């Protein structure tokens, strides 16, 4: 009997373990780094994570609300959402490490945790934190990560784009100064374009990241800081290019410009071009044929009907 009870208890523990341990097997906490801690979520989740902020240009110490929306993933299970300053598995990814102070977390209680967990995830949800900005003028970045279990596996999805914040005025930033050379702000583009940035810096640059509409495209660690962008991957309309540079001292600088994609006009142009080429070629053949016939008819008249 005791053996049966033991087996039953083991089965319960083994079967429930992946579901119960969404992140460090825990509840909301304020000490969760990006790194995996007690329960590594190594499987890529089908969930999508996006972020919005009430304001991205802040004065030092100003409050801002950051909302993290998770859609998809394993409904009915535990879902954990974490707010961090980097998506690298390194220490000091806590918002407090960069000078942020969490005033309130999504639990609507007095807690100020960077990690929030819901026990019965409905398939989508939005989780809001209110923070005060760092006191040092600089550019800052916040990211979010969602973690959940399911089918005996531990899944995670990141908001790779994160959100960029400027604290203070750009003139007093300590990070590298980024200038986007092409495309120029407001330019209408089509096809493949080169996104080119100039990032002069007295301190060696660690990397520069290209983001389109907040979605990270490519990370470069060396010059030239230029990227080829196929605009046909984007919808026609206005988009935002963001180039964020981080120097070896961890200082962040960024620049973003809006541009407009209009591939429909380019496709129409190409269609008209092909039509014109085809019509022109047919017209030339027709003109030459008609003139040959005319020449032969004149010759027939000159020659008095001789063949």
């Amino acid at each position: 009997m005791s053996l049966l009870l033991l087996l039953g208890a083991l089965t319960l523990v083994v079967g429930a373990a992946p579901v119960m341990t969404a992140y460090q097997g825990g509840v909301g906490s304020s000490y969760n780094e990006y790194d995996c801690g007690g329960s590594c979520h190594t499987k890529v989740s089908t969930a999508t994570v996006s972020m919005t902020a009430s304001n991205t240009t802040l004065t030092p110490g100003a409050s801002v609300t950051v909302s993290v929306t998770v859609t998809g993933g394993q409904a009915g299970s535990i879902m954990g959402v974490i707010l961090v300053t980097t998506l690298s598995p390194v220490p000091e990814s806590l918002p407090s490490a960069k000078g942020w102070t969490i005033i309130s977390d999504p639990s609507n209680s007095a807690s100020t945790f960077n990690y929030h967990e819901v026990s019965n995830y409905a398939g989508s949800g939005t989780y809001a934190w209110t923070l005060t900005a760092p006191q040092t003028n600089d550019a800052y970045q916040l990211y979010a990560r969602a973690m959940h279990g399911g089918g005996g596996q531990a899944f995670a999805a990141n908001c790779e784009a994160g959100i960029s914040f400027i604290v203070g005025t750009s003139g007093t930033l300590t990070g590298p100064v980024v200038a986007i050379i092409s495309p120029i702000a407001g330019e209408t583009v089509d096809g493949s374009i080169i996104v080119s940035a100039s990032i002069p810096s007295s301190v060696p640059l660690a990397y520069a990241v290209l983001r389109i509409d907040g979605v990270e495209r490519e990370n470069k660690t060396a010059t030239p800081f230029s990227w080829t962008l196929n605009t046909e991957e984007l919808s026609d309309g206005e988009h935002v290019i963001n180039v964020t540079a981080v120097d070896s001292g961890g200082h962040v600088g960024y620049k973003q410009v809006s541009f407009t994609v209009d591939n429909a006009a380019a496709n129409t142009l190409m269609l008209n071009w092909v039509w014109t080429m085809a019509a022109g070629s047919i017209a030339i053949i027709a003109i030459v044929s008609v003139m040959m016939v005319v020449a032969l008819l004149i010759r027939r008249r000159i020659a008095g009907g001789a063949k």
Partner: protein
Amino acid sequence: MIDMSAWHALTAELHAGFLTMSFVCIMAVALAQIAVRLRRWMPKILVSWAVKTRGYFEAAGLVGAVLGILGLLLSAWTGMYAWPYDVLINDPIVRNKIMLSAFATVMWTGVVFIRSRFGRGLWTCSPMAALYVALTFVSFGLLGTTGSMGAHITKGGSAMDPIWNFVGFEVTSDLILNSNIAALVAIVSMGALVLSLFVAKRYDLFQVKLEAATCQRLFKWDEPRIEYEMPAKK
């Protein structure tokens, strides 16, 4: 590995060279024909030179045109790799150059067709000879225009710019029709083509053989044969 733009430059030189040779030869034949036709009023040495050379020029004109068309096709092929699609779509001069090159290829093919269909005998029929020379002239002009556009692409300007400025032609502006108008042009052209074929059939023009005996009432042209004997005075 040689860059494809180098191959394109090479094939462009090739077709430009052959077609220029063809143009020069055909124009030389036209002048020689006139000199021979008007031999009573021409210096004897000029007439003698025309008689001796026109046959060779005539053949060289055809050979140059055929090789030039092959060069044009090669240029189109190498150009496709030298100019990526994105550059093509974004540069109106490149689009114009490709389009006019296509037109030039069709026109030079017309030159070769006329010469191949009617042989040297076409020179005995003044209307056909005039068409042959005029088509060669326009085809060469079109080739020169594409060359000028190529110079704009690679050098930012061309020696023909004063001419373009004079006639008010802007090489950087798109020479593109609206697709509806282009379709109308194509339909009308096809109609004209069918009509010309119908007329040719109606008047039995497909069987025509051009030679001195069949087309001599107005202008007494003779064939530019390869020969050394001075034709007898008529």
